[in-house]
């Protein structure tokens, strides 16, 4: 009996010891963190390298075992909303989604050090763009989200650049298309006509990202002029292409002009080679008066997901500072050509490109925060404008319809 009891006791001790050893093996260093990072196309490898560099150099001895995944900046917030518990710890997203991200509580509050870092290193526009209510909510990464004109030098005369009517005439004469997505990209391009005529649409949010007020002057005489300008492009009829893809330069019926941004530079260069022309947005003329098309200027941000572990949250903000810092932004410019939001880099003449220069030369307006559905309302209006007549009262009617739906966006 004694032997049996002894055997049993020994077995128990052995089992207990095994569990202790296993538990000890499983215990990780307190400064090791498993994280997920969502980045845009083309920056996965670079981000992995940058995180590895952070692990090597950071003064706190923190190590992030990061899984870097490619999630388009335009979809990151949408994906995070659909699976909030499983969204990334750090994620890159486009400016138009900031208010939505705040509304959905996807962004951790930034500590004083982070806010100071952003204020000191980013240009004023970027800081303003990253602010919701009175709080800075995300780390600016780029300041290049705007558009300008790519054109085929063999189809569009040099003398026509700068004047929309002349460009349209060249397209007609050459039988080539004009690509500008005015009707199905949420008004991002269409807004250029409204801002050209002096209209504005400003939306105010509270601290929680909820839209509380707006000031929209699209429904005005200037708005009618904007739609008339847009109708000039719609007037191209079959030569108008509702896209912003530079692959249109290579289509069955090729485009002579594509309005797009710096992300398309490499692809456009590949198609047209030396015939690729890049220019600021042109101006258009209505009733003898000229209006300069005005691009939105948006930013890309890096957001930090709210955490339950204070230390992890703290170090994640340190990592975000590093990844959006001067060095990493410069690497991103060199690798994928993204325009920096860092003040010093913006002033650095070596950090520029043909495309960035075109964007720089384009008249721009800072893209504010807009309700998510505002973009869809713009589409509804511009799609109607495409097929409507250009009589003032008809265009006014479209603007009034648009304007009447705006109060619904204040929730």
């Amino acid at each position, binding site marked *: 009996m004694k032997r049996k009891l002894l055997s049993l006791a020994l077995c128990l001790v052995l089992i207990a010891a095994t569990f202790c050893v296993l538990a000890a093996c499983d215990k990780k260093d307190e400064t090791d963190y498993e994280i997920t990072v969502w980045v845009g196309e083309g920056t996965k490898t670079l981000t992995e390298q940058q995180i590895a560099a952070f692990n090597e150099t950071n003064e706190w001895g923190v190590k992030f075992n990061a899984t870097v995944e490619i999630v388009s900046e335009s979809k990151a917030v949408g994906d995070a909303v659909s699976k909030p*518990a499983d969204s990334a710890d750090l994620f890159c997203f486009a400016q138009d989604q900031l208010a939505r991200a705040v509304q959905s509580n996807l962004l951790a509050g930034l*500590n004083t050090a982070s806010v100071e870092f952003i204020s000191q290193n980013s240009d004023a526009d970027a800081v303003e763009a990253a602010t919701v209510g009175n709080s800075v909510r995300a780390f600016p990464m780029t300041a290049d989200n705007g558009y300008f004109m790519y054109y085929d030098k063999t189809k569009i005369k040099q003398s026509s650049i700068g004047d929309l009517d002349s460009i349209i005439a060249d397209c007609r004469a050459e039988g080539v298309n004009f690509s500008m997505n005015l009707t199905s990209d949420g008004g991002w391009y269409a807004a250029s006509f409204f801002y050209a005529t002096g209209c504005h649409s400003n939306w105010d949010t509270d601290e929680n990202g909820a839209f509380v007020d707006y000031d929209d002057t699209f429904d005005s005489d200037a708005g009618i002029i904007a739609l008339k300008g847009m109708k000039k492009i719609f007037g191209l009829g079959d030569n108008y*292409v509702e896209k912003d893809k530079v692959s249109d330069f290579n*289509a069955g019926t090729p485009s002579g002009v594509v309005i797009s941004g710096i992300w398309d530079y490499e692809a456009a260069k590949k198609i047209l080679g030396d015939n690729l022309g890049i220019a600021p947005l042109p101006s258009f003329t209505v009733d003898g008066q000229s209006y300069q098309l005005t691009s939105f200027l948006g930013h890309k941000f890096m957001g930090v997901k709210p955490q339950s572990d204070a230390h992890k949250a*703290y170090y994640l903000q340190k990592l975000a500072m590093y990844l959006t810092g001067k060095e990493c932004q410069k690497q991103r410019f060199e690798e994928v050509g993204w325009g920096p939001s860092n003040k010093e880099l913006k002033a650095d003449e070596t950090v520029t490109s043909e495309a960035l220069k075109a964007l720089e030369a384009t008249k721009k307006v800072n893209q504010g925060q807009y309700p998510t559905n505002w973009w869809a309302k713009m589409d509804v209006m511009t799609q109607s404008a495409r097929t409507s007549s250009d009589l003032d009262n008809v265009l006014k009617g479209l603007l009034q319809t648009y304007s009447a739906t705006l109060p619904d966006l204040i*929730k």
Partner: protein
Amino acid sequence: MEKKQTSPLVKVVLRDGSESVNEQVLLFEIEGNSYCASAPRTHTDNNAREIILCHRVKPSADDAETEVGKQVVSYWEQLPRGEEQDRVFDEFCRLYELRQQEKQRREMQAAEYLKLGKWQRFVYRLKQFFRAVPAWFASFFKKIGKFFKNVGLKIADNAVDLFNTFKNGSWSTRVSFLVMGFGNFVHGQWLRGALFLLMQGAFIVYMVLSGAHWLSLFGSLGEVATKEVYDSVLDITTTEHIDNSFKILLYGIITIFFIFAFAYTWRLNVKQCRICDEITRSGKKVKSAKEDLKSVIDDQFHKTLLSLPVFGIVMFTILPIIFMILVAFTNYDYQHDGYNNLFTWVGLQNFNTMLSFGSGLSVAFGEILAWTLIWAFFATFSNYFLGMFVAMMINKKGIKIKKFWRTILVMTIAIPQFISLLYVSNLFADNGIVNAYLIKWGIVSSPIHFWTDGTLAKIMVLVINIWVGIPYLMLITTGILMNIPEDLYESSRIDGANGFQQFAKITLPYMLFVTGPYLLNSFISNINNFNVIYLLSGGGPARADWGDMGGYIAGDTTILITWLFGITTGAEANYKMASVIGILIFIVVSVLSLIVFTVMPSNRREDDYS
């Protein structure tokens, strides 16, 4: 059958409109039981609720051969002779007479029908079809009512049985009401007892540790989403997630399932104890654990085999369906993701939003539903007939290199639709290669708006769907066509039938009969045919007049399933409305399936096939 000397409670019902192969059928009820008095054809069903009788009604010696026949004869004999038997007999006769009259009327109708021309016959059949529709719906709702009535009666029966079991059962059975499996232990059935007890233990532990929590929050779907804590040392605010509406809804449903499973097991436990009592009282021996174990691989083997699949179906099919249905009654969307911001119940508000008469959304829904049905109809039948036609052409004698033709068509299947459809979509774009060449060759002066003109886009998706769909139908129908007996064609040829007549009178009826269920399945699949529409036209051209939902603007070729996709992946993901659309799709699909399945020859004349 319980004998009663008093009122025989005979009620004779003519089975009106019966399509049974047995022409002379009388259905009658005796003391609440339904019986079938049929003509001489042998009835093989030995169910005690259906018996064979001669249509003369009065039982004869022959009828008494079967057990049920004996019961009826016995019933007949126990009726008081004289008035009572005469009354019953007269009732049968009267109804039999009615039956005969009905038969004659139908024969006359058939004669009239034969006089009609082809078109008139079609109109007649169409009228008959639509006349029958209200009856189908009435029957459907009646069945639903009957189902609930039966459920109610069953519950009541169970309650009475439980009461009687408690009242008349042994002490161990009574204890089993509280301690599951106790009765089984007392009767030596330790395995059953242990399983019942295990179930009770698991249920109690689950409810205490988790189930009660989920159930208590199920009514509100959560009260507090997050709690923020400020760490002044690190200057960091951390977020602790408290309630999660998504989890509450999911685990709430699982808990309710578990409660039902427990209630069923508890009922089973009481029943088992009662049976044990009865067996013991009769002096017999109850089944031992060894016998129980043996039975799960012997006479109860079907249960052993089915247990895992049933569990899988409940967990992975029924549970998600119920979850998705319940989402339609919440405000689950991008602003209420359930994790950072809770969602809650909103009743029928979403259905009201979708179906409010005259609202933009209901107009969009109506038009999209109509196009979905048109699309499904044409996509199904165009592929069906053209696929059959191609198969017949290739099978035709005299056609050379048949394998080559088949291979060419099958190549379409070999290339993934994702590639081929996107490619075709670009081919027909306004600035695509087709338009470019049409202009270059001077056939058109300006591009044809294949995708930007609503009507043209609809035609295009239908035509391109034929291209990708025909090969499947060709393969399916080739096999069936080869199975049609050649002598049918030979004899029709001798009778002077031409090719078209052979197709219309032999091939098509045969094909429709065999492929009826496939056609139905194909129609339903096309209602949900996401790929073709999404990859070709993306649902466009967009209809600005419908406005937007979830940041997505539906278009002329949008079908319900692509609409659902658009609003869940749009800028303002709207899961609640997607769920409403899902439910509406289910209703449309199930109603259509029921109607089509009911009228389908393969279903109505099953034994004709042989």
